[in-house]
C-alpha cells in the first residue's frame, strides 16, 4: 500500500501517523535501558541472560543483557563497542585522499553510501564542482548499494526467522551487484571508486548493458521474494505487530531511514534535503504507518523496487554522456591523467605533491547528510587548512537504530527479540566505528 506521489506532496509535512499506542514507551530512567519493574526485581523468577556478543543473529557483535520473566523480556540493555576500531582517530593521521578508504569499512554493507558522505563533505569544504557524469554514476552506484544492503537485511532477517531459502535467493542477486562493482572498480566490495572531484576511473565499456540486464532481472527477483515471504504464515505471524515503534517515539529517538518511514513519518533525505541529482529523478518514498517489524520489511522491499527505477533513469542519462569528463579538472586536488606523466613536467609535479603530501582543504567545519540504506548517514569534518583532517565524525544510523531496542522490546517475547534486532538493520561496524 504505497502512497501515490501526488498524495505525498499535498499532505502536511511530515505525515505523522496516529499513535500506535497511548503515550511514549521510551523507558523513563535511561532512554536506552529497559529496567526490570520494581515488583519483579525482588522475586527469584527473573533470569538474566547474555544475548551475544557472539550469537549469529546479532548481525555481528551486539551484546544484549536481557532479563526474562518466563518467556517475556522485562529488562534489556545493549552493550556495544566490540567492533570499535577507532576509525575517526585513524583518519586524523591520513591525508584527505587516503582517508576515503575508511568510511567504507565503517558501514561495510552500505559501503558506497558511506564513501559518498565523506567525499561530499570534503567537496563542500573545497567548493569543487563535480561533473554531471560523476554525479549520475554516483547515484547509480549508491542505489545499487542500497539494494545490496537491503538484500543482506532481507536474507539474514528471514534466515533468523526460519526462512532459510530466502538467504540463498537474496545472495544470488547480491552477487550480481558485486559483479557490477567489480566491473567498475576492480573490487567486489569497498570499491573506493568515488574520488574527491568525481570518480576514480571512467565507466568501463560493457557496464551499461550489464547493468541493464540487472535492472531487467531485479523486479522478477523481488516478485520471487514477495511470493516466498508475503503469504508465508510463519513470517507474517512473527513480524506483524511485533516491536512496535510509534512515530513520536521514533522521532524522539532520532530514528531515520526505513525505520522512521515504517513508523509512518514521511521523510527521505533524497527527496526532502536533496543531494546529487535526486531532484531530477522520479521515485516514490514508501511509508507504512504500522511501526512494526513487518512495516520495516515492507518499506525495504518497496525501496528496492524504487531503487531499480532510479537506476534505470540513471542509465538513460549516463548512456548519453559518452566521452564526457568523469572527474573535475582541478590539478591542485585531482590526480593528473596517467598518460600525461610521461610528457608533462607540470603533471608530474602535481602528481607527486598530491600523492606524497596530499592536497590542502580550506579551513572550516561542515556537516553533510545523505540517505544511506540505514537512514541518515552524516559526516562532520573539521579542517585546519592542512593536508589531513583535523576531526572526522560519522553520524552512524545503525548506532542510533540500536538506541530504539529498549523501546521496541517493550512487552515482547524472547523470540521476538531476534526479529526486532534484525528489523532495525544495524551494521555493527557502523555502530562501533
Amino acid at each position, binding site marked *: 500500500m504505497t502512497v501515490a506521489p501526488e498524495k505525498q506532496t499535498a499532505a502536511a*509535512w*511530515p505525515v505523522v501517523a496516529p499513535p500506535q499506542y497511548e503515550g511514549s514507551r*521510551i523507558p523513563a*530512567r*535511561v*532512554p*536506552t*535501558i529497559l529496567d526490570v519493574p520494581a515488583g519483579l526485581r525482588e522475586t527469584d523468577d527473573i533470569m538474566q541472560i547474555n544475548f551475544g556478543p557472539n550469537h549469529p543473529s546479532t548481525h555481528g557483535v551486539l551484546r544484549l543483557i536481557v532479563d526474562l520473566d518466563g518467556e517475556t523480556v522485562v529488562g534489556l540493555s545493549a552493550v*556495544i*563497542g566490540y567492533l*570499535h576500531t*577507532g576509525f*575517526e*582517530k585513524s583518519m*586524523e*593521521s591520513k*591525508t584527505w585522499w587516503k582517508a576515503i578508504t575508511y568510511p567504507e569499512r565503517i558501514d561495510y554493507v552500505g559501503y558506497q553510501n558511506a564513501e559518498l558522505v565523506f567525499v561530499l563533505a570534503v567537496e*563542500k*569544504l573545497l*567548493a569543487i564542482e563535480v561533473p554531471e557524469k560523476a554525479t549520475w554514476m554516483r547515484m547509480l552506484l549508491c542505489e545499487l548499494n542500497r539494494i545490496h544492503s537491503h538484500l543482506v537485511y532481507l536474507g539474514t532477517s528471514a534466515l533468523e526467522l526460519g526462512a532459510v531459502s530466502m538467504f540463498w535467493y537474496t545472495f544470488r542477486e547480491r552477487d550480481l551487484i558485486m559483479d557490477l562493482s567489480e566491473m567498475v572498480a576492480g573490487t567486489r566490495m569497498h570499491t573506493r571508486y568515488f574520488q574527491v572531484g568525481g570518480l576514480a576511473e571512467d565507466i568501463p565499456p560493457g557496464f551499461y548493458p550489464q547493468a541493464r540486464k540487472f535492472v531487467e532481472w531485479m523486479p522478477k527477483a523481488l516478485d520471487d521474494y514477495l511470493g516466498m515471504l508475503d503469504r508465508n504464515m510463519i513470517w507474517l505471524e512473527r513480524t506483524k505487530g511485533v516491536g512496535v515503534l510509534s512515530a513520536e517515539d521514533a*522521532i*524522539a*529517538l*532520532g530514528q531515520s531511514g526505513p525505520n522512521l518511514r515504517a513508523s509512518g*513519518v514521511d*521523510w527521505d*533525505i533524497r527527496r*526532502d*534535503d536533496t543531494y546529487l541529482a535526486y531532484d531530477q529523478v522520479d521515485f516514490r518514498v514508501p511509508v507504512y504507518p504500522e511501526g512494526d517489524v513487518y512495516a520495516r520489511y515492507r518499506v525495504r522491499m518497496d525501496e528496492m523496487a524504487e531503487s531499480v527505477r532510479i537506476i534505470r533513469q540513471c542509465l538513460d542519462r549516463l548512456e548519453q554522456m559518452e566521452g564526457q569528463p568523469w572527474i573535475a579538472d582541478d590539478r591542485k586536488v585531482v590526480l593528473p591523467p596517467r598518460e600525461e606523466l610521461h610528457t608533462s613536467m607540470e603533471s608530474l609535479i602535481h602528481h607527486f605533491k598530491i600523492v606524497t*603530501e*596530499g592536497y*590542502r582543504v580550506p*579551513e*572550516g*567545519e*561542515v*556537516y553533510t*547528510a545523505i540517505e544511506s540504506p540505514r537512514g*541518515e548517514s*552524516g559526516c*562532520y569534518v*573539521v579542517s*585546519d*587548512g*592542512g*593536508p*589531513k*583532517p*583535523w*576531526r572526522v*565524525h560519522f*553520524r552512524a544510523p545503525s*548506532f*542510533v537504530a*540500536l*538506541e530504539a531496542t529498549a523501546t521496541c522490546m517493550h512487552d515482547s517475547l524472547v523470540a521476538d527479540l531476534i526479529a526486532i534486532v534484525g528489523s532495525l538493520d544495524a551494521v555493527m561496524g557502523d555502530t*562501533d*566505528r
Partner: protein
Amino acid sequence: MSSTGWERIPGFVSVKEAHGETTVTVEPAAIRDACAFARDALGFNFLVDVVAADYLGWGAKGVSGYIGSPAGRDLNTPMTQGLQSLPETKPKRFSVSYHLLALRKGAPRARLQCWIDDGESVPSVVSVWPTADWHEREQFDLMGIRFDGHPNLSRLLLEDDWEGHPLRKDYPIGGEPVRFSDAE
C-alpha cells in the same frame, strides 16, 4: 532558517553562516535551555548528532600536517609548505556541537555549538531528546566531555577500565601497553 532570529535563543553568543550552514554559539551552561527552545519555539524536532572536537594545538607547528611557522610559510625548512595563514583561533579547547534538523519542508538544519575547557562540563540534553543518550556517552567515552545530569554517563564503546580519551589530541598514538608480555 536564516541567520536572523537566533538572538532570542537562551545563552546566545553569536551566529555564523559558512558553507551554507548555520552555526549558533551559545553559553555552555545554557545549552539544555537552548536546545529546548530550538525544539519548541523554532521547530527543530530532530537531534541528528552530538559531536565534540578537540582544538589542542590548533594552528601550532607540527600538529595535523601543519608544518609552517606562525608567520606563515617557512622557507628555511626544505620540503615544507606551511599554511599561508594561520587558522582562526578558537575560544576554548573543546567544541561541543549539536546538529539539529527540522522535519519539515526545506529540511532546515542548524548547529548549536558551545565551547569548554578541560574539566568543565555541559548540561545533558537527554531530557530534551532521548536520542542524546548514546551520543553523549560516546563523546564522554572518546573525548572526555562531561555531561551534567546524564542518567547513565559511562563508557560506551571502550572497556569500562580504559584509561584516557582516545580522540583527544594529547592521547598517545601507538602507545598501547601490552598486558601479557614474556617478562611475566
